């Protein structure tokens, strides 16, 4: 087949990229080779637009065993235990087919984690939809949530935390990010690096079909009117097979048979084989006649680019093939030797006794294009929002409107579709600042959370990047965990647009600053560009997945009020920052003013003291203050416990809206037994921590001076209405 410009472009390659291919090969590629290049050189696999920026992020602290660059990050949590985790996007497939897109997103991230020798112990997700009024939103919401639940429940890993948000910026491009967390023995971590020549390359798992051919390049393109037609065969998830694959891999890992292992994710057989060879500085030769196929007459092109799910590639020690095969047969899975490692440093593909492709590995990996794309610095607004210019509203009306809004309603409708208890170690489920999973049969645990703040990042990508890292840190602190490390999923628009590239570059700088200051490095992550349609890009939406360590399960905390007549205090300074707040968004549909700044010194000091107080057992409950300000945080504490509050505004700040809806950072609310209060007050003062007394807990009534008075029960009903009426079912 003659390779025309049209064919090149339809593979998502630029003409100058094609010239580079010819130079690297010293000849024209054939059609199969072109397909392989397109898969490896697209944004999703090559990180060509993001790499130079990602390098700036800190990736190490004393806990990190493996940073970015492997299937997932690994941290040390003591006693030979290691936690393996990563987050990944599945945005475009989920927009096309929400159930299968979300399901296969969960499946993909799980493979990244058990590939490294870890048994997955928790799933999280961050899902962003368009505005609820948008005609597509309802079915996307239903499809995505049931896809996540369908896959996670079936494979038997608890889905215990996440976030569900609505914003018109996602009307034509939803976000579905899934995170998996696994537990491994730190001396038995498995990597993708191939070692030794002439070793067997083994294909295991499901058969290969024509699914998702070009899925990776689709993830690297904008949507347009024609996307529907360009649609490849949709990948269907098979959680049952994944469960078998997981058990078989974990069983095989107990023996010393595996040299290296890599899941087949985006760009399937191509990227997995190239990755293994590249890391090991070797070549690889595959005999495509051996690839187990689901359909008849599959071509080498289809086999190499298929994104069929639930498959893995292994390199096995000499003489271990038979015993390894037995394990996969026990689990009714394919196990076929399809090739070997070589010295050539080439990817060589044979089919029907002919060499059908031969490409130097480095041409596909280290020599792939890298771009330092042009980027513009954001012009940031610094004009403070003036309430005088807004139509006036009564405080209680404003509050109830927010509590009943799509974004701030109780998310039980979502979380009750997820099995949160399977595996028997879920100490805190969804609904808390961070979920907690016990390490099986031990007295320690990890805390996990995912967070994002698109509005803040849109208005000021740098501050936003800082803020979202701090929010993640704060959520872990609030349950009594020491924050250890993060994974991030960077969902952005089109990087060829200098404004968007600027959002990305500055966002990274902000994240870097916070991660460094808090000693909270990035150990894995994923970049998803081209989120948008026809030049309309989504708000920059970095999603942070945080993991913290709890050494002693007797010293944990949550945000549920425990008693009436305890003291309530706010830690951290309240200036009344309303820029980019929920208050403006929900009540005035305004995204206005600057994002809240984070003072990293205060963040760190406040957090460390909270952790100390939790460990000392001196407080009854704690909650971080995030979107919606003090009043929303108080409401969440009341709603989850049934206990009310009697609150007054401290005199200093004049405006009640600013004080209670303001979104200043680095703050927490504490509930303290009156008898413990003097002790806590002393600790805070001795450490120079700013705090204010704002009221006490009381029976039943949620009350703020003369501005608000409602029973907690009534508040609960208001908070629980939205999802059920939107979806039209009552459960």
């Amino acid at each position, binding site marked *: 087949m003659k390779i025309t410009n049209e064919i090149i472009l339809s593979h998502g390659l630029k003409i100058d990229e094609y010239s580079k291919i010819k130079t690297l090969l010293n000849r024209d590629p054939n059609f199969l080779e072109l397909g392989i290049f397109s898969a490896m050189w697209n944004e999703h696999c090559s990180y060509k637009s993001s790499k130079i920026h990602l390098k700036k992020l800190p990736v190490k602290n004393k806990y990190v065993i493996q940073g970015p660059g492997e299937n997932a990050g690994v941290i040390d949590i003591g006693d030979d235990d290691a936690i393996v985790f990563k987050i990944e996007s599945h945005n475009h497939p989920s927009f*096309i*087919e929400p*159930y*299968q897109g979300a399901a296969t997103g969960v499946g993909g991230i799980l493979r990244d984690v058990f590939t490294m020798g870890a048994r997955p112990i928790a799933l999280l997700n961050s899902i962003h939809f368009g505005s609820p009024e948008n005609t597509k939103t309802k079915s996307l919401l239903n499809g995505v949530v049931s896809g996540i639940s369908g896959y996670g429940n079936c494979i038997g890993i608890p889905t215990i935390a996440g976030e569900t948000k609505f914003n018109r910026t996602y009307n034509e491009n939803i976000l579905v990010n899934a995170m998996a967390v696994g537990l491994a023995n730190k001396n038995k971590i498995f990597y993708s690096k191939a070692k030794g020549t002439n070793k067997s390359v083994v294909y295991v798992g*499901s058969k290969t*079909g*024509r*699914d998702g051919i070009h899925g990776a390049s689709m993830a690297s393109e904008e949507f347009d009117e024609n996307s529907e037609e360009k*649609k490849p*065969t*949709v*990948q*269907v*998830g*098979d959680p*049952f*097979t994944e469960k078998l694959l997981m058990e078989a891999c974990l069983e095989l890992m107990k023996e010393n048979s595996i040299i290296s292992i890599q899941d087949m994710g985006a760009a399937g057989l191509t990227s997995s084989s190239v990755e293994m060879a590249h890391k090991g500085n070797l070549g690889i030769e595959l005999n495509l006649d051996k690839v187990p196929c*689901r*359909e008849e007459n599959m071509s080498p092109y289809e086999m190499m680019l298929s994104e*069929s*799910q639930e498959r893995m590639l292994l390199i096995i020690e000499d003489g271990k093939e038979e015993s390894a095969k037995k394990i996969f047969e026990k689990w*009714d899975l394919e196990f076929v030797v399809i090739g070997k490692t070589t010295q050539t440093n080439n990817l060589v593909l044979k089919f029907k006794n002919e060499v059908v492709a031969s490409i130097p590995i480095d041409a596909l990996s280290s020599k792939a294009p890298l771009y330092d794309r042009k980027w513009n610095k954001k012009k940031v607004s610094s004009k403070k929002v003036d309430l005088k210019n807004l139509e006036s509203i009564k405080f209680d009306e404003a509050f109830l409107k927010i509590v009943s809004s799509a974004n701030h309603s109780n998310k039980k409708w979502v979380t009750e579709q997820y099995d949160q208890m399977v595996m028997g170690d879920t100490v805190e489920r969804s609904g808390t600042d961070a979920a907690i999973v016990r390490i099986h049969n031990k007295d320690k645990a990890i805390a996990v959370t995912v967070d994002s703040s698109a509005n803040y990042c849109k208005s000021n990508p740098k501050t936003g990047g800082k803020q979202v890292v701090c929010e993640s840190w704060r959520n872990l602190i609030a349950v009594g965990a020491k924050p250890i490390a993060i994974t991030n999923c960077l969902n952005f628009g089109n990087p060829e647009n200098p404004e968007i590239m600027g959002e990305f570059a500055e966002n990274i700088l902000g994240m870097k600053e916070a991660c460094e200051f808090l000693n909270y490095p990035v150990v894995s992550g994923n970049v998803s560009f081209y989120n948008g349609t026809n030049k309309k890009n989504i708000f920059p939406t970095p999603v942070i997945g945080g993991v913290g360590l709890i050494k002693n399960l007797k010293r944990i905390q949550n945000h549920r009020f425990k008693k009436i007549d305890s003291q309530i205090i706010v830690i951290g300074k309240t200036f009344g920052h309303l820029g980019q707040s929920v208050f403006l968004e929900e009540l005035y549909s305004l995204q206005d003013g600057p994002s809240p700044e984070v003072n990293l010194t205060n963040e760190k000091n406040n957090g460390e003291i909270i952790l100390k107080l939790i460990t000392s057992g001196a407080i009854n409950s704690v909650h971080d203050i995030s979107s919606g300000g003090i009043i929303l945080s108080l409401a969440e504490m009341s709603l989850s416990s049934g206990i009310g509050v009697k609150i007054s505004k401290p005199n200093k700040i004049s405006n009640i809206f600013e004080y209670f809806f303001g979104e200043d950072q680095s703050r927490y609310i504490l509930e303290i037994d009156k008898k413990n209060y003097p002790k806590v007050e002393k600790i805070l003062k001795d450490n120079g921590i700013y705090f204010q007394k704002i009221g006490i807990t009381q029976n039943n009534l949620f009350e703020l001076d003369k501005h608000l008075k409602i029973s907690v029960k009534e508040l609960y009903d208001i908070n629980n209405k939205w999802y059920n009426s939107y979806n039209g079912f009552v459960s």
Partner: protein
Amino acid sequence: MKFSVIITLKKDVLDPQGKVVQQTLQNMGMDSLRNLRQGKYFEIEINELDEDKAKNIIEQMCEKLLVNLIIEDYKIKKL
């Protein structure tokens, strides 16, 4: 008027259910089984006497709710 709707997965789309059912039958000794695919079936009765109109309504039901056109095909038949 009463219709049946048969919904099947498109040809190249993976059918995990069908696969497992087929394997189970083969394990049970049904050696002659060559291929099995699973689909959905609906029996729908509507108050409409004009056959063309009725068919049209059923078609709408399929396109708007019953069928996932991205991965499924359907066939309507009058009963």
